[in-house]
């Protein structure tokens, strides 16, 4: 059946059903985004709200057109002029990428172990992975301060074992940020990965072995390629929020930690420069969305080629 034919057969009920998620996206994603985008084109002002121009429907068409003419890309130009911004972007992407890689290295064995465990254990193990969500994210990040600080649990433990003589300086460094991100986002990687590994038919590995492939090689030739969708989904779920992460670098990181979320926060609250911080947010969104769209296009083309 052609696309057009299937479309014409879709009744009013069908359209209504599809309209719900679109409506949701419109209200809670597109509309806020347009507001932020508009602010990013405005100029900073000492006013409430702290930018200019503002649109007021009561002022009529003329005022609206005048307002439009005041909008400019000035803030975006500014972002290219001050090195702080692009350095923040690069540093954020770098920290997020490294954290994602570490999370994958830790998460894959966990997900693999869960998927290979006896069936009766799996719900319990799954529960244990989700369990941290029962505590507030903020509290869990705070708890890491208690663990990582100079006189914290980790240093006390290592000194008790005699492995170190002086406390390690971890808190307020990038290392603490990595620890925080990896810890916080691990479940987001484990869950989709577990889902794809659990579906994997065990007889495929037996077949590979039967055909002369040792188990470690079968892992690379069969398990890894077949779990790739789970790996990609999990990595996206870690990487995307990690790039824009604010709480973790703010609480665990130090002055050297440069992340865009922090820059944005400073711009917004300390400098009260809403237009520039909006521009920062829009660029951040583009940095994240464009590669994903390109990737999805690529995947689609591959899938179509296979058909």
């Amino acid at each position, binding site marked *: 059946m052609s696309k057009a034919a299937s479309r014409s057969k879709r009744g009013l009920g069908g359209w209504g059903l599809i309209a719900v998620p679109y409506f949701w996206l419109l209200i809670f994603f597109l509309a806020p985004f347009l507001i932020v985008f508009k602010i990013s084109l405005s100029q900073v002002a000492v006013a409430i709200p702290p930018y200019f121009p503002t649109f007021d429907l009561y002022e009529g068409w003329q005022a609206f057109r005048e307002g439009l003419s005041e909008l400019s890309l000035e803030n975006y130009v500014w972002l290219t002029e001050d090195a702080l911004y692009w350095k923040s972007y690069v540093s954020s992407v770098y920290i997020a990428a490294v954290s994602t890689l570490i999370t994958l290295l830790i998460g894959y064995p966990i997900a693999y172990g869960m998927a290979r465990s006896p069936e009766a254990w799996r719900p319990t193990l799954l529960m244990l992975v989700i369990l941290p969500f029962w505590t507030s994210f903020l509290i869990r990040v705070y708890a890491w301060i208690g663990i990582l600080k100079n006189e914290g649990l980790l240093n006390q433990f290592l000194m008790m074992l005699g492995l170190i003589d002086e406390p390690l300086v971890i808190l307020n460094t990038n290392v603490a940020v990595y620890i925080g991100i990896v810890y916080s986002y691990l479940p987001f990687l484990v869950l989709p990965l577990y889902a794809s590994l659990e579906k994997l038919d065990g007889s495929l590995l037996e077949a590979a072995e*039967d055909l002369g*492939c040792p188990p470690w090689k079968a892992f690379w030739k069969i398990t890894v390629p*077949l779990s790739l969708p789970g790996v990609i989904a999990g990595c996206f779920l870690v990487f995307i929020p990690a790039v824009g992460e604010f709480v973790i670098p703010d609480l665990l990181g130090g002055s050297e930690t440069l992340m865009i979320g922090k820059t944005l926060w400073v711009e917004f609250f300390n400098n009260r420069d809403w237009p520039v911080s909006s521009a920062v947010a829009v660029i951040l969104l583009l940095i994240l969305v464009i590669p994903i769209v390109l990737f999805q296009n690529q995947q689609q083309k591959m899938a179509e080629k296979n058909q």
Partner: protein
Amino acid sequence: MAKKTIGPERRDLVPLEDPEQKQFIEFRNVTKKFFDFVSVNYLSLKIYKREFFALLGGSGCGNTTLMRMLAGFETPTSGEIFLDGQDLSGIPPFRRPSNMMFQSYALFPHMSVAKNIAFGLEQDNLPKSEIDDRVAEMLRLTKLEQFAKRKPHQLSGGQRQRVALARSLAKRPKVLLLDEPLGALDRKLREETQFELMALQEDLKMTFLIVTHDQEEAMTVADRIAVMDRGELVQVATPSEIYEAPNSRFVADFIGDVNLIEAKVLEKADNGTRMQAIVGDFAIDTEQTTAASVGDTVWYAIRPEKVRIAQGQPEGSVTNQIGGIVWDIAYLGDVSIFHAKVGKDDHDILRATKANISRMVENPITWDENVVLTFDRDAGVILTG
């Protein structure tokens, strides 16, 4: 008169009774326990080269476990397995010279048909040209040439089955293990494929070992069948022997349809045995001798197609004759099955089948009609177990 035998013999196969013929696969006192469950119980079995051998049994009888131990996926709790003179214990599956075709086919979903077939060959680090040649040969053998580039999910069930077969044959294993290979196919395709498998096995001159629960499949493809029950071999013989000379009530009942008549031994002679049926009250005269003593209770197993059914007294002399009333008739097209009540109880039924050799019958046998059931002296088997 020529000497009577049970079934034809495959001429190209070295007679299995030949003491010179060396066993190719041997299970020696093999036991496999899963916790408390004994899956295979102290089993010994020899399979010869170029045999098509079937392990037949219902679910949980241990035939799959036996095959998986040969492939190396299960380790015997005790006992040894030999393949071509080599003790297989401690050898991992990827070093064993056998290949298996899985019940689920276990095709690699991310690889094309050609890649699936090449997988085993690539593990042996064969030169690329040789791999390509062998893959092409396998594609030709299984008539899959035009599907070489497809992924498994783009194939029909029958095509997938052929890919699985091609993949397991590509390495030219010493023995091909087939685990319920045709279970997922519909009846027509299954029957066709059975004959293809037999032709393939003869062409390639390989040893095939098949696990199945389908007795018709086993009888069609196999040179010899091992009937298994609860981890033990009940009977190992050719299909015709299994059918015509079962060694126990289990085998007689498991393979095909059978009347099992409980009887008392009346008289023993050199040329036969006379018995008295316990229900139905009729005498049975057979040419078979038995180890049971006079007065013992035995079972007389007779296949329905070997019982003749007629409306009146048959002409000529008859050794075994029973009167009955037609209780039920099942018309199957090619044959009709008659259930004749021969005793006082409603369950005292003797089944007889009759080939429908003409389309129209004058005065057909009908319900509640008095009939005479007859059978020859060599029609059935005396069973003591």
